[in-house]
């Protein structure tokens, strides 16, 4: 499929993603933050589609937006946010934090400016129609061990979450 209006969609989606990110860190109400984060995640799924990575986009939607964010919303509803909303939102070292982050940003910009040559203009012609199949071959071939470890990690996370969140086991 030939992408249509790539430039426009790139700016739209990345703009939405960054706007969402900015909203996430500035909102007083965590539910609004979560909404903004969902917007970011969906916009990113769009970016993945533009990068010929439909499977990652699908995983992003089903796992991130549909799974993790539901978990977040659940927890936000369970903890009392009203009290936290009335309190100070930023910690005392916020100025230092912003300065550090800005320094990091400047570092990125410098790296990208200096190393522009490192990122060639060329792009591989990734087969979009068989993206899932190729990922499957890699995942169950070369990355089999990592895949199994990931399942173990998830199991540990499940048990850990249950142990910590449940009152009486």
């Amino acid at each position: 499929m030939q992408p249509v209006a790539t430039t426009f969609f790139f700016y739209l989606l990345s703009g939405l993603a960054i706007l969402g990110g900015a909203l996430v860190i500035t909102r007083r109400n965590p539910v609004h933050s979560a909404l903004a984060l969902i917007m970011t995640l969906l916009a990113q799924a769009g970016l993945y589609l533009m990068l010929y990575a439909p499977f990652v986009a699908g995983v992003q939607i089903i796992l991130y937006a549909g799974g993790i964010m539901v978990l977040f919303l659940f927890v936000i509803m369970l903890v009392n946010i009203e009290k936290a909303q009335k309190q100070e939102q930023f910690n005392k070292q916020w100025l230092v934090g912003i300065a550090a982050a800005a320094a990091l940003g400047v570092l990125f910009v410098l790296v990208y400016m200096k190393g522009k040559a490192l990122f060639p203009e060329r792009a591989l012609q990734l087969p979009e129609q068989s993206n899932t199949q190729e990922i499957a071959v890699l995942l169950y071939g070369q990355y089999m061990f990592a895949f199994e470890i990931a399942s173990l990690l998830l199991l540990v996370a499940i048990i850990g979450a249950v142990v910590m969140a449940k009152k009486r086991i």
Partner: protein
Amino acid sequence: MLDYIQGYLSSNLTPGQAGNVFWVTVYILIVFGGISVAVIAMNWLERKALAHFQVRLGPMRVGPHGLLQPIADAIKLLTKEDIIPSGADTFVFWIAPLIILCAAFTVYIVVPFGPTHAITDLNIGILFMLGVASLSVLGIVMAGWASNSHYPLIGALRSSAQMVSYEVAMGMAVVSAILMTSLHGLGMYGVAAKSTGTGTLSMIEIVKMQQEQQVWFLFKFFPLGLIAFAIFAIAMVAETNRAPFDLPEAESELTAGFHTEYSGLRWSLFMLGEYAAMIAVSSIAVTLWLGGWMRPFPHWLAGETWDLVFSLFPGLTFLGLAAIAFIGVARMPKHPYFKIQTAGLGGFGAVLGLIGVVLFVPLVRDRIQDIYWFAAKVAVFMYLYIWYRATWPRYRFDQLMKVGWKVLLPIAIGVLILTAILGVVL
């Protein structure tokens, strides 16, 4: 322009695949409009069918046999006052129904109404459908939370827990169907097909695989496909919050669950989303197990003659509906609005009949019959939804979870493993 149309009509790709912006737009409009009409029709049908199950007549006043009732309802809902409770989080309250609606409608991008009748054919089709459908949980949670009231909150918690749990069993059932796309093996009629090696997630490819293997996945590896389908059929009812799994909006317990505080337009958006989601999951079931757009017995009753016979069905259906309308005209009782009702029903029947006649034109007939068979299969599921609702009491929350986690999930995993083993052995 003409080239565009010509170019499309001769194409054997979906508009999205062909990258044809004009046709994509047209298709989006047709599909979304069609789904909206289907939702309205479903609304009327549900009320009528449910009423007849329950020895009532259902809507009879607005239009002949209440045919205009959904429109009257829509007008009522649109003109109603839109109440936002004090203490509600206005923005979230406002956006929640839109999320549900968007999630329910976005799914239709990949629904294959026919080999070329889909908006697009994504490589991750089924994954996309499940993912986007699961986004409606977000809307429900937000609606319940934003209402700032206990009943909606409990409804939202119930519903999100329920949808997340049943998605697991549903996903397992879907995976076993996807596994079948790559496996050869024996169908119900003992027809062996050649192995294709790799499977697929694309909705259109899944149906094509069923065509190639000459079996609906419902009958493949005989009991296994059926069990997986049954699990999906149960989970999809739970997924769409319908009876007997309608706890999130359990009328007698939580008044209306997560949309208790909603009124007017926003409430109607919830309803629109719910019905659209019902049609969406039914079309997943049809695509995965019931051969999608394939007509019944494509191989057993193959050949020119049978093709012709089956391609007459769409037209005959519409003529039949027209006949029913005309019987209604003939039996119209003499009440004050007798004349206008007769004219209305007669006109409706005439339109149906005209559509029926148009559907007999060979060119239209060939293009339309895929969509017809797909819609017919979905309609069966819609009827089942109504039937369930009329027959069964409601589950309790813990029982619902028990069914989801302790019954459906183990069976689904077992079916998945057996399918994989059978696929390798056979």
